């Protein structure tokens, strides 16, 4: 017994986790690719049954095609719709849900068919619980972060172009990179309110140098204290980074911030409060005063 799952994507990096989630849940996965032909072609080689391709015009944002996706959804028999939390695909997922009357939820981490129902496990309350929800009809899920390996050597799937008659005039006027080297850095030191005075940032800079890392910060240090430029704050509404290692110094770990570093491979945290939420996200931690730990880390790094 299988069921149809459609993954809505606007960029190639969104594909693997969604396709993997669908396949491991026993679904026949199709992709709705809203973007250039290359996106549809990449999708077609990832083990999906079919690719529906909506070609985007240069200058228009993916959000311009909500109407087209809604039209497509109306003639779909999919039981499940997935998209990443990025704004473009999420806007399109909302359109698909509204068009099909799909129950709409968020933070999905696993799904399966249970009798006639599609069952989704989701992270809720900032990850404090896993909730199980089920739908008799279609379900649309803003998928949580996850990793997925694309199927290797799968035969390319058929690509069906879907005409988008009249997209909205949602025009992307300019895109500028922000965050400088920080966004691409493989090592990042993040600093938060645990640093008591601006002058103490020297401590952090010294550690970053020994670590070979760029320095970013939590929202209050940029927004409230203005110790760092706005481009340097990491979080849901700021920079999202995916370094090999992220070292959080004096950061409590509010959900806002943590979302910006979820892509990091390893997170290490130093915070004097052993109950700081950052320790729930981090791989490694030192629950001590950063004023003592930072110099010790510099020594440890220099000693090799």
């Amino acid at each position, binding site marked *: 017994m299988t069921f149809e799952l459609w993954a809505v994507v606007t960029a190639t990096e969104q594909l693997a986790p969604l396709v993997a989630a669908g396949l491991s849940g026993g679904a026949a996965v199709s992709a709705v690719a809203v973007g250039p032909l290359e996106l549809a072609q990449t999708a077609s080689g990832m083990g999906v049954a079919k690719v529906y391709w909506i070609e985007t015009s240069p200058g228009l*944002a993916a959000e311009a095609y*909500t109407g087209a996706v809604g039209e497509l959804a109306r003639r779909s028999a999919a039981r499940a719709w997935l998209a990443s939390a990025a*704004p473009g695909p999420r*806007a*399109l997922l*909302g359109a698909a*849900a*509204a068009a099909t009357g799909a*129950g*709409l*939820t*968020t933070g999905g981490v696993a799904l399966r068919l249970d009798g006639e129902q599609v069952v989704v496990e989701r*992270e*809720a*309350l900032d990850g*404090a619980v*896993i*909730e*199980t*929800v*089920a739908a*008799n*009809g279609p379900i*649309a899920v*803003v998928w949580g972060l996850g990793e997925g390996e694309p199927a290797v050597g799968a035969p390319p799937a058929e690509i069906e172009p879907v005409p988008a008659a009249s997209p909205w*005039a*949602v*025009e*992307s*006027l*300019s*895109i500028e990179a*922000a965050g400088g080297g920080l966004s691409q850095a493989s*090592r990042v030191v993040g600093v938060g309110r645990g640093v008591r005075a601006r002058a103490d940032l020297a401590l952090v800079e010294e550690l970053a140098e020994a670590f070979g890392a760029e320095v970013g910060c939590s*929202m*209050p240090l940029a*927004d409230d204290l203005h110790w760092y430029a*706005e481009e340097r704050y990491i979080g*849901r*509404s700021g920079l*999202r980074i995916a370094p090999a*290692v992220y070292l959080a110094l004096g950061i409590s770990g509010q*959900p806002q911030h943590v979302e910006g570093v979820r892509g990091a*491979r*390893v997170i*290490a945290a130093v915070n004097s409060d*052993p109950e700081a939420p*950052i*320790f*729930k996200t981090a*791989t*490694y*931690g*030192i629950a*001590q005063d950063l004023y003592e*730990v930072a110099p010790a*880390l510099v*020594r*440890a790094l220099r*000693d090799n």
Partner: protein
Amino acid sequence: MKTIVIYKWFRSAASALVRQDGQVDWGGAKMAAGDDDPAALDIAKAVAGPGGTVTGLTIGDGETAWVLARGVERALAAPAVGPLTDELATARALAQAVRLVEAADAVEAADAVIVADAAAHPGVAPALAAELGRPVVLCVSSAAADGSQITVRRRVGNAVEVICLPPPAVLGAVAAGEEARPPGMMETIRARKKPVVELPVTPPPEALERRGTRPPARLGARLFGGSPDDAASALVAALRADGVL
């Protein structure tokens, strides 16, 4: 321009008590202002412009005083709509309310409907746009209207993007900082004393069945103890072993 800001439409995760067995106890938690609600209001004011009007809209037991204390003249509530699990049902309730406001104003559509692009309920803003049949931009941190266009700025990933779209539109707002100037006690008291105007919105059916909650597998950090130097050396060794140093 005419704008509608939707605020206090969900409960804060912080007011839920999670029991050891993963059961969630909301107690008497009310609809609360989320981190992004002040940003939504700022954007609604910016898009409305000096001669424009902003109407505030909340659901359930969301308190209209929140927006009245922040300089909005008109605030309406849809008390019959409680917290819903299904984000499409929430969006449909909000769409009903928006249409009632527009009908009362005898306009076809407000120029912009602004709603928090809440991390906990990220499906609501786009589903609301789809229900209303209007274009949407999400993750908006600031906006301005000029003539027949709305121009928004947002930060996605590591890029700052400027987008323009025609009204009527829906914008999902994200805060770029804490609220600049929360209202004082007098403003809040005066706002509380204003009558609440209620909209007859009926809660739409939900397409999701809740099967319960359980605690997540807690991974948690591996903590290094001892003297600061011991802990630091152990951390550096662990990072080297993981191949990230």
